[in-house]
């Protein structure tokens, strides 16, 4: 059940280009499923801040039973107004948090090989998924990407559970030099994946959807479009998508997504 609460910053540390922020968020994350996100209001909780739009963040990890109750880990790019604010909060700060939100990744019924493709901070959405897939016996391969080494989310937990981890960076500072689009065909072949899960910039997701389809694999993409509210109220995050009825609908990325089948998105209209 989705809820709203005043969470509290427990840990906040810089890892590479991103700030990893752990929030104690009882009542908000217990029902989390991989692919869900949470939504944060800027400023001290309450109607005082001049920024009205919420900001959405992928859930990197949920620990339901830490000593302080449930916590949620976010990976924050400390760039814009919201990112800087959240990344800069001292431990103990209150944060207006809503979650879990959105439709999660659909998981395969059988133990099929899965390829998880993540670029930048968005890769965070794939780690809880990998855990579940491994639990269900799916062989999991990772393709992680970033502009540069510091933007590739650290793979410690990954290496433990994944069959293989490939890294590509645009500047070649970590792994092979190249892009997801360049590395994906090889990764698909090596992993023999029948399902591809992807999170990253829209152009990357578009490429993943196309290449996966060419290789006969299903893809599920975690789509980031600007989400003014994150809760489904504003209709401001519309994505043109083909429904099960084969008819094109305009759906809300936050409520009907953010995870979509790659072949359902009308990429050209995005």
């Amino acid at each position, binding site marked *: 059940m989705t809820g709203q609460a005043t969470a509290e910053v427990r840990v906040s540390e810089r890892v590479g280009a991103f700030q990893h922020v752990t929030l104690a968020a009882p009542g908000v994350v217990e029902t989390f499923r991989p692919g869900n996100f949470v939504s944060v*209001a800027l400023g001290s909780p309450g109607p005082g801040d001049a920024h*009205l*739009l919420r900001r959405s963040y992928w859930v990197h990890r949920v620990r339901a039973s830490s000593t302080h109750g449930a916590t949620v880990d976010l990976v924050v790019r400390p760039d814009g107004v919201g990112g800087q604010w959240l990344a800069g909060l001292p431990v103990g700060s209150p944060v*207006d948090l809503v979650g879990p939100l959105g439709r999660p990744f659909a998981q395969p019924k059988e133990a099929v090989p899965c390829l998880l493709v993540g670029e930048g901070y968005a890769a965070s959405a794939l780690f809880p998924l990998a855990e579940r897939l491994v639990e269900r016996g799916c062989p999991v391969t990772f393709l992680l990407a970033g502009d540069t080494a510091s933007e590739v989310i650290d793979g410690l937990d990954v290496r433990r559970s994944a069959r293989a981890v490939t890294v590509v960076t645009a500047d070649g500072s970590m792994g092979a030099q190249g892009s997801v689009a360049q590395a994906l065909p090889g990764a698909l072949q090596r992993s023999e994946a029948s399902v591809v899960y992807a999170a990253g910039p829209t152009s990357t997701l578009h490429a993943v959807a196309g290449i996966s389809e060419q290789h006969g694999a299903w893809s599920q993409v975690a789509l980031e479009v600007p989400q*003014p509210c994150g809760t*489904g*109220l*504003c209709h*401001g995050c519309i994505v043109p998508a083909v429904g099960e009825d084969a008819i094109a609908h305009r759906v809300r990325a936050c*409520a009907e997504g953010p995870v979509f089948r790659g072949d359902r998105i009308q990429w050209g209209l995005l």
Partner: protein
Amino acid sequence: MIALHVAAGCGGTGRELAPYADLTALAGFVTRTLTLDPRRGGRLRIAESRGGLVRAHQLQNPGVDRFLTAELPWLAQQGVATWASVAGSSPADIAAVVRRLATAPGLSGIELNLAVDDAASQRLHDGSTPRGAAEAVRAVLDILPDNLALHVKLGADVRRLPAVARAVAEVGCDALVIGGALPAALDNGTPAELSGPAVLPVALRAVRTVRAELPEFPLVGVGGVATAADVRAFGAAGAGAVQVGSALLHDPSALARITSELEEQS
């Protein structure tokens, strides 16, 4: 206590608001504005300004028929007092929308949306003049069944409001909805509408202006409400009910918060 409504277009389909608010306790849940045919309206763009939201509106909506099949049944089943916001390209077009809604079970009323920025470029009937407004209201009244109430939303154009409000009141409706978003632009110049706490003082002035013109007519205030103090200010300005819009995007629990603030302090 002043009755609270969800402002048009700010409550999703109702389902998404349900985790944060007791919808059945609401005096009204107003839908986003519905037209006869779906309007894709490009992508709705919403940006922040200080204390406000700037929305490149274009009345994006799925059309009245899809609302009737995909959204109203759930609202009706929950017992939500649902108001359908409607607009159209002409009085006849508006009437056609209302006719579709008229027999749908579970609707409480119609909110005729005449608070439209730049009607011409949006292919909408211009209800910003006394005459244009009266025509639209008359067209709706002619076909409105007895079981549906009619609210008419007029915006916050302080200079024109007195004459337009009087014209509508003379044709007749159950209440005027006064305030709403202001004509604005995104930073890149795209025409848009400003809403949220930033507009509250303008909406208060609009309500006060209409109250002075129509001392007795029922008024619903809308624009910038985020706290119980805001609701009370609208009450003092002459509104008997208040709609909450943008505040829900920022704090989906705003209705519950405001309600308990109002109860505490009354």
